[in-house]
């Protein structure tokens, strides 16, 4: 991949402001708003900057309404930025030039592009024609996608007869037939069971290794992010709170560790050691300050009939929650 700047995605002071209608509840307010519309400006994305290098997989994290999807849509050319600049593969996305569109893809876990009543294979054919993919290349790409996703058994069934997971596999395949260099994945594993999530995840990793494609991914499942992304960008209220290695995120924002203890005689009150939560299997999870972990572990072992004890990092979900709580 050759681009003038070394970044595959370059974002600088990117901003998106929506103007939304506002009205109070009730009939009178509804009539009033017919005549006088009150609008309010909301910064969905409030001036963010980052670069993504070719071949990187970057996780884009944030609660609902943080501005993740808006950013992805600006980067894929569906939304015009209010101000600031972004370039993807050295093209300004909002112009939606054909050469740009041929090199990117957007997968939205909650929406589908496949035609409902016919087998996915026919939708693939349609994409082949629209993207003008030469037949030999189409076949070899399909073969490759089949290796990774095991599509063979499902592409000839009407899409409406597929399970959610099977449909997602086909959606992803349809989005990748033209071998894009940049993938925007918005919640690609949403609603899927754990096994299928794992499959999709390993597929994304393999695809990235094989093709060197750049991936920007949003997900609510931390497992996705942990498995795929070394680097994460945390966004909240349209601003970037953190941009760096996932491990740094934990180091920086997690001030606690979790000690899981099982005692011989079952439950005991451990609240004097720290914030404690009883677990279903009879154990107790203790949240303790990171710096105290060693001392408290020692104390527990010395004073109580411990049968099992493990020390764990605070789950990333909770770390992220703490990050957002800081705001």
């Amino acid at each position, binding site marked *: 991949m050759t681009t003038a700047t070394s970044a595959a995605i370059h974002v600088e002071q990117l901003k998106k402001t929506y103007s939304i209608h506002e009205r109070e509840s009730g009939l009178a307010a509804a009539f009033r708003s017919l005549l006088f519309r009150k609008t309010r400006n909301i910064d969905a994305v409030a001036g963010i900057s980052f670069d993504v290098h070719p071949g990187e997989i970057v996780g884009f994290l944030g609660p609902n309404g943080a501005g993740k999807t808006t950013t992805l849509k600006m980067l894929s*050319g*569906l939304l*015009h930025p*209010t101000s600031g600049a972004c370039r993807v593969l050295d093209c300004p996305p909002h112009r939606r030039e*054909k050469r740009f*569109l041929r090199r990117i893809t957007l997968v939205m876990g909650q*929406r589908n592009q496949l035609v409902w009543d*016919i087998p996915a294979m*026919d939708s693939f054919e349609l994409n082949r024609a*629209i993207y003008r993919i030469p037949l030999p290349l189409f076949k070899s790409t399909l073969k490759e996608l089949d290796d990774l996703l095991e599509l063979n058994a499902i592409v000839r069934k009407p899409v409406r007869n597929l399970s959610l997971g099977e449909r997602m596999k086909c959606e992803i395949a349809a989005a990748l037939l033209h071998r894009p260099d940049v993938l925007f994945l918005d919640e690609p594993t949403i609603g899927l069971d754990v096994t299928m999530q794992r499959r999709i995840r390993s597929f994304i990793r393999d695809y990235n290794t094989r093709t060197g494609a750049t991936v920007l991914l949003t997900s609510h499942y931390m497992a996705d992010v942990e498995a795929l992304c070394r680097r994460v960008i945390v966004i909240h209220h349209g601003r970037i709170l953190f941009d760096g290695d996932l491990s740094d995120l934990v180091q920086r924002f997690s001030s606690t560790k979790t000690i899981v203890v099982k005692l011989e005689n079952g439950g005991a009150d451990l609240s004097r050691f720290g914030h404690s939560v009883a677990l279903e299997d009879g154990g107790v999870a203790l949240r303790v300050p990171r710096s105290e972990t060693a001392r408290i572990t020692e104390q527990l072992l010395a004073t109580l009939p411990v049968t099992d004890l493990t020390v764990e990092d605070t789950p990333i979900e909770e770390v992220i929650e703490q990050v957002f709580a800081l705001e």
Partner: protein
Amino acid sequence: MKLLRLLWLYFRLGILSEMEYRINFIIQLGQSLLSLGAAGANLAIVFSHTSSLNGWDPPALTVLLGIFFMMGGVIGFVIEPSLQRLMEDIREGTLDFVLMKPEDSQLLVSVRQVRIWKLFDIGLGGAVIVTGLLWSGEGVSAVNFSVFALTILAGTVIVYSFWMLLATLTFWFVKLENILVIFQFVYQAGRWPVTLYPAWLRIALTVIVPVAFATTVPAQAITGGLETEMLAGAILFAVFLFGVARMFWKIGVKRYSGASS
């Protein structure tokens, strides 16, 4: 040609989708025949009382009915289903997938959904036109036929552009399903020559809801009753309306992408 290539692609998909629901084939064919029969009966009743309606004799009106059917078929075949889907897609946000394709977005949204059974109406309409012409006993000169073809083309472009304009409004006003129903209703007026209607209605059916160009004008063309000015007018209006629809579409897409805020 790009338009034909894409139309063929979606036509193929349309066939594939419809094959999933076979019984539909029978129902649709029955429906087409029934409504044609009803329209023919209407004509028969009128002509049992009079032999000419404002200069239109039974064969000419039969030709008009054929054109009305054919044009309705064209609308129902690709224009209506595609633009209805466009409106749904704008509402549901699934238009994104169209805009991300490296192809002209207006072209894609205009041919994306095909209702193949409407080809019956096009075929039936053609047969009715031929019947009317044979009945009149006057042959069709090459000139009249070419003018007819031109007016059909212009009429199709005008009706398409008009629908496109209406559908594009969805970018601003999200709930607009009913507007297309209104058009269908007004289109029914096209089964009679617009010259029968009072002046205000005639003007409305020519300029505001351009039904006249879709039916009356082509019928005049093939029966040799079309003035040159009207032909020129139809072509110019088609070009103009298409240009406006195209511009409006671009503004709409820009708005969809939020260029305004």
